[in-house]
């Protein structure tokens, strides 16, 4: 345990404290730090309706993405865990292989598929399913699609690792006792894999809310997410103090949400150690 905690302390906590301390200072005129005047002004700025609404909107998009990724990923992981044992590792590899190519060219490929004169619209018009091209690109739909695409394999990996050890005899016993397939799934399988579902959900949610490239490319820059906002504060506005403030608040809120979820889980009897 020690090497891991040490690594995170030395290479995350200490360096990040160097940045978070900036939240209490102002941006210098040319983009440096004005060390002369400690201030809480950045927190007042962050409370502006604009930034709150960007945060809420990002959380909404991340939540929708998470739900869809779970709906796709869970049954897929379940199916892999039910495949012949010798195929399982290969099936996992196949799920993740597409993501060993570069993000940018995968996204360009989606643009080719989704754009108004793209492959999907041409096909739909070709078979007469629609007359005018559907607006599939440069909107929220495209951003969510892109995020779901990117992070579904992570859900599969997380859920598979908790499903894999699941003893099929539990489910068989349940079925033998007359429970329906649905009841068996809800009462036996799902609770036993809750840890995997939770891990997968956390991956998708945190990676989505922090993503800043997908909204730019598939959203056509028309959606501002918290990831973009923070990125822009650090690099475009060169306002590190405000960027540090927004990041600190984001982390604090996510930690609160996680602590709440962990507490709820323990109360629900899923507690451990």
């Amino acid at each position, binding site marked *: 345990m020690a090497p891991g905690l040490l690594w995170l302390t030395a290479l995350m906590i200490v360096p990040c404290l160097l940045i978070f301390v900036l939240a209490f200072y102002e941006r210098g005129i*040319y*983009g440096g730090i004005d060390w002369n005047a400690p201030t809480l002004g950045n927190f007042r700025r962050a409370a502006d309706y*604009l930034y709150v609404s960007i945060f809420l909107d990002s959380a909404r998009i991340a939540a929708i993405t998470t739900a869809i990724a779970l709906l796709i990923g869970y049954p897929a992981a379940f199916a892999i865990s039910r495949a012949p044992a010798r195929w399982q590792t290969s099936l996992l590899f196949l799920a993740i292989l597409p993501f060993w190519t570069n993000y940018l060219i995968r996204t360009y490929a989606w643009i080719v598929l989704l754009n108004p004169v793209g492959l999907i619209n041409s096909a739909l018009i070709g078979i007469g399913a629609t007359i005018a091209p559907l607006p599939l690109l440069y909107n929220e739909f495209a951003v969510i699609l892109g995020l779901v695409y990117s992070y579904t394999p992570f859900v599969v990996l997380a859920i598979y690792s908790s499903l894999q050890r699941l003893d099929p005899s539990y489910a068989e016993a349940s079925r033998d006792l007359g429970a329906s397939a649905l009841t068996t799934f809800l009462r036996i399988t799902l609770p036993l894999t809750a840890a995997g579902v939770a891990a997968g959900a956390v991956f998708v949610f945190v990676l989505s809310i922090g993503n800043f490239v997908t909204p730019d490319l598939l959203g056509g820059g028309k959606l501002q997410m918290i990831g973009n906002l923070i990125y*822009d504060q650090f690099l475009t506005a060169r306002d590190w103090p405000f960027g540090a403030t927004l990041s600190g608040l984001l982390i604090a809120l996510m930690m609160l949400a996680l602590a709440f979820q962990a507490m709820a889980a323990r109360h629900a009897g899923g507690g451990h150690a």
Partner: protein
Amino acid sequence: MTFKTIPAAVFAAALSFTAMLTAAQAETLVISNWDGYMPKDMAEKFKAATGIDLEIAVHATNEEIMGKVTASGGEGFDVLFVSSPFAEALNNLGLAAPIDHSKIPNMANLYPEAMQLKHDPGNTFSVPYTWGTTGLCYRSDLIKTAPSSWNDLLKPAEDIKGKVTMLSTDRWLMAAGFLANGMSVNTTEQASLDKVRDQLVETKRALLSYDDTTFYSKLVSGEASLVQAWDGWCNYGIAEKPEIKYVIPKEGSDLWVDSIVVMKASKNPDAVHKFIDFVLNAENGKWVVENIMYKSPNKAGMEAVDKAMLEKYPNMAIAPADLLKYEQLRDLGEGMKAFSKTVSEIMAAK
């Protein structure tokens, strides 16, 4: 080996392995530039001419290299290629070194106008590498009336609604709004920001997307029929489809300049000046125009370019004196906070 020593052993092995991979290299000049912005054989040719090694790093955007050198206190690079507002900011932050013209004979290759740029008159801390305008790039075959004003972009006609893109880089996005209203491209006054914001939010509803990397590709595919574009990038579209045209709106443009900046932390001032001198030779100036399709402030280079090229890409023939009529984007200093909030408001608007 005991249980507890495994992580330590892995750690040590990994560190020594990676240390091996990154063994210290001989003293060289470190350049950071956009990929493809210099001839591929620049390092070999420079080495042959001067005996100095070049280590060429690449950056994707001005913002990233700026963030990187700020975080490292200016260490790590000798020379950067950045756009002029960033060159100005580097100088304001005390990260840029003065340029010694006596060590750069090829400075004489530049147009006289290239010595009068407002962000750095006399090229004291930066040397212009390319320059040009920002305007409208469009498909003449897909648009009823040829655009002539920034308002043709901001209030697109019915036939091109949803087929228009604007640059997503904050300064140029706002510049379109400022120019349409006859304001300075460096406006930071709140009432003007609000006015332009309202206009750009309205425009957002008629946009296909914000795009500063593939807009010319969208014109070629026909996804878009009118885009806000840098002149050089419009040329990439023209190269694929001659129906694509470029126009500077009647309200004017900004003058963008990509420049070469020497970092104060550089320990090789002589080598750095030799490098700039080498870049400014006529051959390299010509290469930029013919391969990047940007205009060069390098007179000797521009004059060596095949005239047929200037005919195919008319925006390349804009005279330096005409370029200088346009205002340059400047570092906004204190005004940056209000400016960037306005941009966030536009980006977050539904």
